[in-house]
């Protein structure tokens, strides 16, 4: 127990405290601890010199989260229901196809999207368009947010689909069979038997991915780098860029601190609403 707690303490609780501390400094490239009080936060909230990008960043983050969260939950539900209600081999094939994003490294997933939606005919989809005689589309410039939402959404779908599928598999056969005997259609079975039984997995996955999407920025960084011109720059990515691209560690830490605060509040609400133990039980259904 000792070493594990030590390591978690060192790389987990110390960083949380350190983030809070750095947030109150104007730490720059020289790495000097110079406390400036609440100046960083004042800047974030528009008191005194306002950060000109903040409104854009918050809008982006809201669009990103409200786009990818429903995509993940509804998409995961749709794919798992469809693939579990068809022939076993075919269902397994489709589930494998949609699980691949999670099995490959992030860099490769990022590469696949950057290459597929490249704006010249060397990109995958533009190459196909060019072969069909259609003009090339600059996907990453015209629809950057849509592409970022899809890339992250399908990553979320891979997990949601897996959890929902295992929950569907654990629904007792009698339920669906009884409905079939009574003459229920496929749609009625899904709507009135399967989906109501998946209530807890759906809630768990929604909560889980809500927190994931708020904090995630790695895939956006790999696919668009936040661009073109801040079009896909979300809150967490903005914090990262402030610290590691502009070397404004203090400001970056204050941006991340806001994220930590939002996370903790969300977590408390979720624990209050669901109970901790229930949130950790994965894929269980209550019959």
């Amino acid at each position, binding site marked *: 127990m000792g070493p594990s707690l030590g390591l978690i303490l060192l*790389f987990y609780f110390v960083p949380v405290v350190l983030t809070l501390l750095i947030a109150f400094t104007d730490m720059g490239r020289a790495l000097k601890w110079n406390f400036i009080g609440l100046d960083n936060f004042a800047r974030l909230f528009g008191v005194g010199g306002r950060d000109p990008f903040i409104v854009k960043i918050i809008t982006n983050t809201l669009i990103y989260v409200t786009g990818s969260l429903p995509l993940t939950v509804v998409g995961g539900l749709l794919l798992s229901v469809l693939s579990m209600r068809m022939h076993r081999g075919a269902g397994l094939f489709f589930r494998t196809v949609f699980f691949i994003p999670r099995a490959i490294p992030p860099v490769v997933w990022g590469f696949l999207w950057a290459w597929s939606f*490249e704006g010249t005919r060397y990109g995958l989809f533009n190459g196909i368009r060019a072969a069909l005689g259609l003009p090339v589309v600059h996907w990453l410039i015209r629809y950057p947010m849509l592409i970022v939402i899809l890339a992250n959404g399908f990553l979320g779908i891979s997990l949601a689909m897996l959890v929902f599928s295992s929950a569907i598999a654990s629904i007792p056969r009698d339920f669906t069979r009884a409905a079939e005997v009574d003459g229920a259609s496929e749609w009625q079975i899904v709507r009135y038997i399967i989906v109501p039984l998946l209530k807890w997995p759906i809630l768990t996955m929604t909560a889980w991915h809500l927190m994931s999407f708020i904090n995630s920025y790695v895939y956006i960084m790999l696919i668009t780098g936040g661009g073109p011109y801040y079009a896909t720059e979300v809150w967490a990515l903005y914090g990262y860029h402030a610290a590691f691209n502009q070397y404004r560690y203090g400001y970056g830490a204050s941006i991340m601190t806001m994220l930590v605060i939002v996370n903790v509040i969300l977590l408390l609400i979720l624990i209050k609403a669901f109970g901790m133990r229930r949130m950790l039980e994965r894929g269980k259904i209550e019959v």
Partner: protein
Amino acid sequence: MWAKLRWGWDRIVAYLILAAIAAPFLTMYVGFFLRAFGKGMTLGILPKEFGFTNFRFLWEPIAWGLGQTTMWAALGNTLAFAATSGVVVTVICMLAGYALSRIEFRGKNLFLALQLFLHAVPGQVLLIAIFFLLFYIKLLHKIPGVALARASLEIPLGIWMAKGFFDGIPWDVERSAMIDGCTRLQIWYKIFLPLVRPGIAAVFIWGFLFAWHDFIYVYTLLPGTTKLMSTLIQSLLATEVIDYGYLAALSLIYMIPPLSLFVLLQRALLKVPVFGGKGV
């Protein structure tokens, strides 16, 4: 449910919907392989001929910007990074998992809470502080130090996995060893270790795999001159002229070791929970 599937309209619609959603992804995956092994493209995704020119990094150095490295150096760094992380995760999780499974103590629920907390405030958000932490303990820009930081991310879930494996071993085995006069430590390495070998493999792969796939930690905390496979691919993707065939081939080589590990140890891994842990 499966036995008497009819080909009704609803089922055909289900197939059509799934096929339509899967089509772009299948195009991407197939296109990826064609691009890696192809020379010159016609009709968008069909290669004119097949060959291994895209794999020339196997015998040539790789240049990006003003820097230069070889694929083998990057592969070696990745291996060192992932193996260190895997060993750290395994040793710590096996010890802690045993304790959690066998010894009653307060704060067991702490680990449940920790898992949630870890997901709510993930490592990528704390990266600035981890950067400073490694800087102060003089481990920044060093592979073992960054591997240690990376390993700590997988430990809460790894402990949970290890606990599951120890839970599966009956108490009686342990009790009889105790009656025969074994100490707790002796029990641990004489009785348990051989029994939980699949568990060890699973936890090691867990730690190894996430470190092997990691991008943001190595990109941020290691110097630009120490390339791992992930950062090498990223830096080639960030250059002005991108050779996609070359990058596809490089990505393929990058993915082979974890995939082969997976196939080799498949049986042990069947018992592994696949829940989360990856940021999204």
